[in-house]
């Protein structure tokens, strides 16, 4: 087993005129895991994905997918064979029926798995004879997933796959991603839905205004990220300075209360608070939602 990154970018950037859609992006996505790419609408997620797939030319920096440089047109075809992409708009041919769409797509790939198609058609309850045009958004997503999964890709990239799906549709989608990862496919998907990411992802990258503001393992977040609420009956001098410890990301004070946001080292914060005669110290875990809001607000 190799641990070489599946996606790697160095200083990758894209500007449209004066607008920087993506800035100086150093992104690393490890193999055999589920990585979520979080960000508000317009944060630069789709632009990044399109650069990775060679659909948009970067204005600066470099990147590689499965070890092949993203600008290299010769390597591009190779990469496209091993990477499955489910786009935001699930671009499919609207005039085709589900069955025609499947047959059409299968003709491009040597490793097409007809048995998987058969199973998924049934599992997703897709009507083979119906035109793509007349399908609901959820159904269209399922067709796009089926086409991606039929190939056992090495890397599966999905851009906002849960957009427009109802709760049951989202469950089905997450289940499909889990199953695909269990088969050895690396999954990279963008989203702005924190709840769905929190469960299923191994790693979370947060993009904001085109910059990477967080890259952390979800285990690490649960283990180390803490919110510490402290009360001081008499305020010590230079309170803020006293708490500038390693891992402390943000400090807020209100009267006798103080709130410390730490990405690690919560023990040291608690110890310092005790030394300064705090009357109450409460440590609570920080959810991905709080981290997301924190990162988005401070940047």
């Amino acid at each position, binding site marked *: 087993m190799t641990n070489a990154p599946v996606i790697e970018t160095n200083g990758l950037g894209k500007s449209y005129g004066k607008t920087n859609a993506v800035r100086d992006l150093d992104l690393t996505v490890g193999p055999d895991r589920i990585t979520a790419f979080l960000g508000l609408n317009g944060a630069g997620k789709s632009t990044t994905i399109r650069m990775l797939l060679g659909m948009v030319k970067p204005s600066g920096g470099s990147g590689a997918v499965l070890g092949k440089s993203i600008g290299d047109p010769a390597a591009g075809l190779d990469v496209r064979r091993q990477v499955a992409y489910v786009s935001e708009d699930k671009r499919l041919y609207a005039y085709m029926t589900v069955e025609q769409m499947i047959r059409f797509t299968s003709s491009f790939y040597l490793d097409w798995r007809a048995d998987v198609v058969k199973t998924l058609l049934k599992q997703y309850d897709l009507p083979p004879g119906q035109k793509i045009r007349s399908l609901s958004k959820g159904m269209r997503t399922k067709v796009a997933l089926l086409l991606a999964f039929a190939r056992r890709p090495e890397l599966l990239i999905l851009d906002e796959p849960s957009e427009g799906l109802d709760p049951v549709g989202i469950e089905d989608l997450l289940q499909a991603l*889990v199953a695909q*990862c269990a088969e050895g496919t690396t999954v990279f998907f963008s989203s702005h839905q924190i709840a769905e990411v929190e*469960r299923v992802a*191994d790693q979370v990258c947060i993009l904001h205004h085109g910059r990477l503001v967080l890259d952390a393992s*979800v*285990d690490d977040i*649960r283990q180390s990220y803490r919110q510490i609420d402290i009360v001081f009956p008499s305020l010590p001098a230079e309170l803020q300075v006293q708490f500038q410890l390693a891992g402390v990301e943000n400090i807020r004070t209100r009267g006798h209360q103080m709130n410390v946001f730490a990405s690690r080292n919560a023990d040291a914060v608690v110890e310092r608070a005790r030394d300064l005669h705090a009357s109450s110290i409460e440590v609570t875990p920080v*959810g991905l939602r709080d981290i997301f809001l924190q990162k988005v607000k401070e940047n």
Partner: protein
Amino acid sequence: MFFRLKPSAGQPLYLQLMEQIRHAIENGALQDGAQLPGIRTLAEELLVSPNTVAKAYSELEHAGVLELRHGSGAFVSVSRRARALTDRVRAAEKRVSNLIEELRAEGLRDEEICRLFEAGLVQQSEAVRK
């Protein structure tokens, strides 16, 4: 076997799963030799990354609680030491529930009891560290 993972709890999901499997073995819901679901099956059921399940299984194998048989899955393997532990845990459970009853009778609320237990454990572990 039913497992419930809390994504919002301040503990990695694989640790939550490990604890629940351990607990199920201690209270007899999972008995010696019982087979656990495959990694993919359990991951799909819990809607978590397969790596979460794989990590929990492999750590439990390391701890001697599970046996991973190539191609056929994970099985509970309760050693004699672990069985003795099970008995001890059952006895402790009884004592803890008696104490809780006493404290409730004295008018303490459940959150207060919970906080006291937690604070007591924190003090203990700090004393050990020093």
